[in-house]
């Protein structure tokens, strides 16, 4: 009996859209062979947020070290790779350009196909590294820069059915954390305080129009700031835990309710959460509980695949590789890149 020798698909993926310099190697779109992340968070802490020029400078320092470590961990030579993938956008343009130019140079040096991946497609495909994605699928993407509900009718097809009209959820977390004098990044601190709190300050829920899947968090953020100002003027001290819980309850309730309504309307077979804020325990618990009751499978990737990483870019790139969606050496950073489908809907 003749044996068919199948060559494995190995994709080198690079991600530098914000403050993590990351490289990964993904086998057959599912298996993480290497996943290296050099975080800059310690450097940006002193500024209370990510400074784009500082981020770009760190990316240049780290980029070849991170790619080298990924190849060494995978014990692969460049000639064994199938393609090079990189985050093309959205993100900080100066930061994106480092990953993109490194990816282009590497692809050129070894004459490999180049794949430009949308950062959000990456966050969604992080789930493909954990269990197979089943369509139609609804993804709630929540991070420092994004709050979106994305409907996927098929693999590689994306419809943004709702998005934030002002602040991203993670942005609101950071701003509220600043009001509460919590260290940067504030999200995990608010999550922890909310978890410990016994009482919650009552903050508004912003639902927008009845049929809208869009979000708005700037009003909630202002409500927290006003609440703090009022107490300050009265000379009263603020109960940070109660504020954290009140804020988080509002965010989580709106995110959960809109995700549930969309899941019902589009009769999806799977709901997933993705992005840095999906690491939030309160949000995870609420979504898990809600979709358990609803009888729709809900998944959220492990923490290290929720925050920015290159493994997720490799997972999305694997689908693009199959669809032969290749980029060229004139690829530019696309800070406002729209999430576009790469497969014609069936």
């Amino acid at each position, binding site marked *: 009996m003749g044996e068919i020798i199948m060559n494995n698909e190995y994709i080198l993926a690079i991600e530098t859209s914000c403050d993590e310099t990351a490289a990964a190697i993904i086998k057959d779109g599912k298996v993480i062979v290497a996943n290296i992340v050099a975080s800059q968070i310690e450097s940006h802490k002193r500024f209370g947020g990510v400074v784009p020029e*500082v981020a770009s400078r760190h990316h240049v320092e780290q980029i070849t070290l991170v790619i080298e470590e990924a190849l060494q961990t995978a014990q692969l030579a460049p000639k064994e790779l199938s393609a090079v993938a990189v985050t093309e956008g959205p993100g900080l343009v100066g930061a994106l*350009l480092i990953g993109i*130019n*490194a990816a*282009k*140079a590497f692809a*050129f040096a*070894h004459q490999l196909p180049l794949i430009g991946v949308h950062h959000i497609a990456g966050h969604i495909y992080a789930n493909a590294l954990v269990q197979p994605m089943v369509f139609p699928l609804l993804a709630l993407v929540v991070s420092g820069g994004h709050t979106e509900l994305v409907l996927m009718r098929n693999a590689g097809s994306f419809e943004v059915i709702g998005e934030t009209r002002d602040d991203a959820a993670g942005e609101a977390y950071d701003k509220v954390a600043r009001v509460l004098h919590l260290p940067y990044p504030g999200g995990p601190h608010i999550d922890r305080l909310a978890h410990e709190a016994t009482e919650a300050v009552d903050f508004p829920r912003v639902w927008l129009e009845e049929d809208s899947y869009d979000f708005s968090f700037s009003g909630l953020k202002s409500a927290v700031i006003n609440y703090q100002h009022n107490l300050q003027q009265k000379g009263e001290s603020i109960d940070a835990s109660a504020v954290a819980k009140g804020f988080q309850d509002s965010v989580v309730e709106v995110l959960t309710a809109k995700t549930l309504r969309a899941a019902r309307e589009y009769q999806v077979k799977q709901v997933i959460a993705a992005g840095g804020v999906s690491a939030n325990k309160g949000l995870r618990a609420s979504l898990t509980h809600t979709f358990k009751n609803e009888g729709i499978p809900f998944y959220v990737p492990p923490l290290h695949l929720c925050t920015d990483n290159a493994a997720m870019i490799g997972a999305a790139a694997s689908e693009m590789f199959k669809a032969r969606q290749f980029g060229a050496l004139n690829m530019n950073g696309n800070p406002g890149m729209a999430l576009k489908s790469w497969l014609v809907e069936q």
Partner: protein
Amino acid sequence: MIWLGIDTANAPLAVAVMNNDEILVEIKQHIKLTHSIGAMPAIEEALQRANIEPKAINAIAVSIGPGSYTGVRIGVTIAKTLGWTLQIPVVPVSSLKILASNIDSTTIICPVIDARRNNVYAAIYQGNETLLDDGHYSMETVIACLESYKASVNFVGMDAIKYEEQIKNILGDKATIAPPAKSLPSAVEAILLAQQMTLPMIEAVHQLVPVYKRITEAEANWLKEQQPYDN
């Protein structure tokens, strides 16, 4: 020995391929095209025209700055990625020295790159001597420095003309500004300068970063905050 030269430190793009001291291909352009779009296709084209595979490159000369932060980072990122993955040395060359090499002269040469708000990246060279180190200066400082020398001065760089009035007011006829055709950086000059230097270790490529000559505004403010009583 095959050399690849890259200069993306400012608006113009320069790429060259040389075999020892012979030019095989030289690309020089000054059009409205970002380096992120233009640099890699230019490198591919230069090598294709020279009929040289990427793996046949033996060394890279790259303009290390100072200049546009984003511009210089693109050239350096490409150079260090190629250098690391092809396991060849990358030689960093001053963007100001590259500009100065356009002028064949024994008099004083002052390459200038605009850094906005009447500031420039500049240096003052005479022959092999450096009279003022590469740096970020106010244009007044540079002109005052040049005033103290008797010799005539050749300004070079696309941005020098912006300061023509200021230059002529103080230095008068002793200053000349190179014409635009002599003011674009040349990757051939970058390679020739690199050939005069000792080749760095291949491993040094990981440490290669642009020479910015300025810390970021955020870092400057942060440092100020750390010393509230030190004015």
